[in-house]
């Protein structure tokens, strides 16, 4: 018995850890099929009602749409700005580079509550009404840091000799960037964009401070939880989970195929 245990202990431990991680997700998926009444907490029987009418609860799809608007816009701008900063920091030696490097980390290190509250007071002082616009500005701000860190790592691993080779082979500055630099840094930029979107989509604290009367999906769930979260929230959560899983899976398949070729 003790021998069996010592042989399999690591497997048991790993199994428990995986269960621990997956249980909440399983719970979310299972309760999207619950025949819920007001509160979706007790299992009352299987139904596909929520899946067939995902937009039934008032405001849920509107909130989801807002989350997408904020997420996509913030990702777009944060990725462009962050990539440009990453190139500047990774490639050029300028006065104040190390200070900039440090400042870029600040939004990641600052507690979200502080950031959210100070952003709100800043917007109020400037006379900007809270709404989707302020949420987008706030999200771009904190996403940039993550983009810079991700893309910079990729830029640093890029051999400058490759760009020299491109210029030697009749590619001017723009062609060199488009044909050599950008394709080689692209995986880093794509990873940064995915990270930005998931950070923005998930964010509750900063959003809640700066959204005014507008609701994003996390805010909707938070408000709804006071009365009872409808199973449609589980449906949306499940779909998002499946989409993310599919994206990771597709990425790995493409990566493997490229490696084999």
């Amino acid at each position, binding site marked *: 018995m003790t021998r069996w245990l010592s042989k399999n202990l690591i497997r048991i431990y790993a199994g428990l850890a995986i269960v621990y991680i997956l249980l909440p997700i399983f719970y979310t998926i299972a309760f999207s099929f619950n025949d819920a009444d007001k509160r979706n907490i007790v299992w009352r029987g299987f139904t596909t009602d929520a899946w067939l009418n995902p937009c039934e609860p008032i405001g849920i799809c509107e909130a989801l749409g807002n989350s997408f608007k904020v997420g996509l816009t913030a990702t777009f701008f944060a990725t462009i700005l962050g990539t440009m900063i990453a190139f500047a920091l990774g490639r050029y030696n300028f006065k104040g580079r190390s200070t900039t490097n440090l400042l870029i980390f600040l939004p990641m290190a600052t507690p979200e509550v502080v950031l959210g509250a100070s952003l709100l007071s800043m917007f109020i002082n400037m006379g900007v009404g809270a709404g989707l616009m302020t949420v987008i500005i706030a999200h771009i701000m904190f996403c940039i840091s993550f983009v810079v860190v991700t893309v910079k790592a990729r830029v640093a691993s890029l*051999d400058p*000799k*490759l760009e*020299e*080779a*491109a*210029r*030697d*082979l*009749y*590619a*001017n500055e723009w*062609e060199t960037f488009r*044909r*050599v630099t950008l*394709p*080689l840094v692209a995986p880093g930029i794509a990873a940064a964009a995915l990270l930005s979107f998931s950070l923005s989509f998930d964010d509750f604290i900063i959003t809640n401070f700066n959204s005014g009367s507008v609701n994003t999906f996390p805010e909707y769930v938070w408000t709804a939880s006071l009365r009872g979260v409808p199973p449609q929230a589980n449906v949306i959560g499940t779909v998002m989970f499946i989409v993310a899983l599919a994206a990771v899976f597709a990425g790995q398949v493409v990566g493997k195929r490229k490696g084999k*070729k």
Partner: protein
Amino acid sequence: MSEPKKVQGDLVLSHITKSFADFTAVDDLSLTIPKGSFFALLGPSGCGKTTTLRMIAGLEEPTSGKISIGDTDITYTKPYDRPVNTVFQSYALFPHLTIFENVAFGLRRRGIKDVDAAVEKVLGLVELAHLKNRKPGQLSGGQQQRIALARAVVNRPALLLLDEPLGALDLKLRRQMQIELKWIQTEVGITFVHVTHDQEEAMTMADTVAVMNNGKIEQLGSPADLYESPKTVFVANFLGQSNFIDGVVESTDGSNVVANIQGTRITFPKSRNNASGSALKVGIRPEKFRLHDPGDNTHGNVLAGGKITDISFTGVSTQYLVEMPWKQELVVFEQNDGGAPDLVKGDPVTLSWEPQFTFALDGASK
């Protein structure tokens, strides 16, 4: 991209200097490389040879001086506007493109038609046409090296620069590539400028070798010329090994110089004397010495009173260290062909050599 102007002719570097913040990499260097030649820049690391190459490629700008090909000044021309291509030491193949697209890169940028035929032809030349759909990461070092060469050659530049192109290959592959490179150069007729720190590589491949040291050219000539008649101690020691014995000129006798080295009188042809004054450094290559038992018949110049202090077998030859009466140790190579006497450590020996193999340098040279 527009097609770079048809530039042809000799490559001329005149008074090129390149200074960085705290040192001068290339110091007032002037050089003419004839069109169609295989030229090697040889020197130890940090001698300025790679910086020189990068200035020819346009990847560095000289601090002062002028670079031209034929009548065209290219000193400040952008790298993509000059008819020069480089084979990089690390090959620098584009990892995200196939072998075909790597080779086609230069042609596509210049908007040349019929890329396919040109690429196929050059891939045939380096015998790697079957790998055209692979990515660089799936090729061996030797194959990558050949693709890097093909990617440059396909553009038919006026000048092809090779930056230590064989440095990353093992010895056997390096030998094979040396022969192939030489053959390809003859085949395509492009001027090759080859930078290397490997004297054997430079001598095997190049028509003309320039030996560089501290940002300057020490000596320029054919491989045989540099080996047999080095003009400086640095060249004599960088290309092979040399023994130097201090001496003074005693007299000149017709076409010969008579000199005294450490009490022994020797002669050598006047043409072999590069010293301006009477103080000499007399150079003799280790393989030019012959070993004799004391009292044997000798001819040529003779140095008596040596004692063997070390023997090491190196395969084709045996290396002896011989201590002379003035406490200098001389290196002697003897072919393992049965011609040399059987010697053991401690044996007394006499050295001789033919006068025409002597080379005399200025006594003050280092």
